[in-house]
């Protein structure tokens, strides 16, 4: 039996830690995802996002801490947890020698969906991701965007309540990424599911209900995109005073907010209420004024730093390359 079902958080992590050799992939991470939210896990490569996904999807056991999905402890009752999860991994896990329909049907069989329901859901979901015309094509012939859509459809064949998407848009062009997000939002609205999605594309996060920024295995910030901007992104007021007198007056008066100053321009640290009161009080002194709203990108960069992380190709990548060029009867 599921233990202690609490109606609100659908996904919950309590002090989860995971270490690979000497690197601490997750460092006592706690997290809650509410029902029917689109929750984004944002972080640079190697931040620990995939590790978290693997723990939630029961593939990996954390060293310490607890993880729950739909109130089920993923370590104690992995089979029950898996029935409720729909998972799309970062790397495609389709059988590319089978057709689109066969892949979906196999998933249904594996998850114990009876034949008639299977047929009905396959039809429904193919229509949803607009792949109905491709049902009998071999997966090999699909573009990477189509494969991703197929994987999203597949994750829902067993009527999962929670969708885990690990970098669903990585390596796709802008149009395709946009389309994938269109499906995700539509799914959440039509099927009332909870979506946990990882990404390192900052602009995608704006569409989500909640964002959690992680790096080096630690949660750096957690909240609605707007709240994060307010908290970590500094709003700026760019002012062009009318005269030199106005210039020096403003500099003198708002010394503590001064961000940058030159002969013609003054930049002040600001927020919504300050902007209004500033305008009301100093309207007569200024020639031009603009408010610079912080982007999530600036928040993200503030939190994670600007280093680019490169990693050498690991064994898996090497093997994959070997496979791609047709080595040793692969595929």
């Amino acid at each position: 039996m599921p233990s202690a079902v609490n109606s609100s958080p659908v996904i919950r992590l309590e002090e989860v830690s995971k270490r690979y050799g000497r690197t601490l992939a997750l460092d006592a991470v706690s997290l809650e995802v509410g029902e029917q939210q689109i929750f984004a896990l944002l972080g640079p490569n190697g931040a620990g996002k995939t590790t978290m996904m693997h723990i939630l999807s029961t593939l990996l056991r954390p060293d310490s801490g607890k993880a729950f999905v739909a109130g089920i402890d993923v370590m104690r009752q992995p089979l029950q947890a898996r029935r409720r999860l729909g998972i799309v991994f970062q790397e495609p896990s389709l059988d590319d020698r089978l057709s689109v329909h066969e892949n979906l049907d196999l998933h249904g069989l594996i998850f114990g969906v009876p034949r008639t329901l299977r047929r009905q859901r396959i039809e429904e979901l193919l229509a949803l991701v607009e792949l109905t015309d491709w049902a009998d094509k071999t997966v090999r012939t699909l573009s990477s965007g189509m494969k991703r859509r197929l994987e999203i459809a597949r994750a829902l064949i067993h009527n999962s309540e929670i969708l885990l998407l690990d970098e669903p848009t990585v390596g796709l062009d802008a149009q395709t990424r946009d389309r994938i997000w269109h499906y995700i939002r539509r799914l959440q609205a039509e099927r009332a599911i909870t979506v946990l999605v990882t990404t390192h594309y900052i602009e995608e996060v704006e569409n989500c209900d909640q964002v959690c920024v992680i790096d080096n295995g630690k949660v750096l910030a957690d909240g609605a995109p707007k709240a994060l901007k307010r908290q970590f992104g500094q709003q700026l007021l760019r002012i062009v005073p009318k005269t030199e007198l106005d210039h020096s007056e403003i500099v003198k008066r708002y010394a503590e907010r001064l961000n940058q100053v030159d002969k013609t321009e003054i930049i002040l640290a600001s927020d919504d209420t300050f902007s209004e009161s500033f305008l009301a009080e100093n309207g007569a002194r200024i020639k031009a004024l603009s408010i610079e709203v912080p982007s999530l990108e600036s928040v993200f960069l503030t939190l994670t730093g600007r280093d680019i992380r490169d990693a050498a190709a690991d064994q898996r990548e090497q093997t994959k390359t070997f496979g791609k060029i047709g080595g040793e009867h692969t595929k």
Partner: protein
Amino acid sequence: MKGSGIERSVLMVQLGGLYGLWLREVKRAFRDRGQLIGGISRPILWVVILGIGLNPYFRGEVFGKVNFVVPFTYLQFIFPAVIALNILFTSVQSAVSVIWDREFGFLREVLVSPLSRGTILLGKVLGGATVAVMHGSLVLLLAKFADVNLTWIKVLEALGLMSMLAFALTSLGVVIANHIRSFQGFGIFSNAVILPLYFTSSSVFPLDPALSQAQTRVVYPEWLVTMVEWNPLTYAIDALRGALIGFNQFDPRLGILIMGISGIVLFALALFEFRRA
């Protein structure tokens, strides 16, 4: 409807999943043209070229007396061994897909399903074994060329033995694949394991059954005799030969016993490693 919809019993889910995974292996094999070509060309080479070519030399002079070593033509003699060869290659080749599934994706899709590890592995092995038996059966189509008279009973008996052999060898393939990190290692492995195993299984030459143990060791080098005697495949091929052409060097029950035991042991080992991984 929320949740998992209509709940099926646990056993039904496992059986349904087993069927799904088995079907996947079989479908994949039929779509792999390279594997099919190998499955067809290999027996033709062995039976038609090697078999017909060596046929006249298949007799020996033992202690001053010229006679056929076994009362069969060479073609008849290697025919059951070629079946085993086809099964051997195909079984081991299904191990390649184990590596592929593990490294890139598909295995993960299965691992996050409600199927137990045992079901997943059994589906894989049964699927691989089925394909191997099919490839073995291709050789049966060449029976006419080899002067082997087939009856339904012979065929059924052979299919039973072939299934046991295929199950054991596919499990062996999985065990080896568990220890190989890349495809590059696989070529080395197939040369280092498949061919030596095949050549020392009294497949292409018999150890003269007319000789006693002591005489055998005089005629053949000691190490070769030992290798043949220790090779489990020797007994499997012997049992198959018994079923198809009625020639046995050993007790045919020994072959069944050895195949049965190694099938169970190898599968258990594969499962043990798979659970731990």
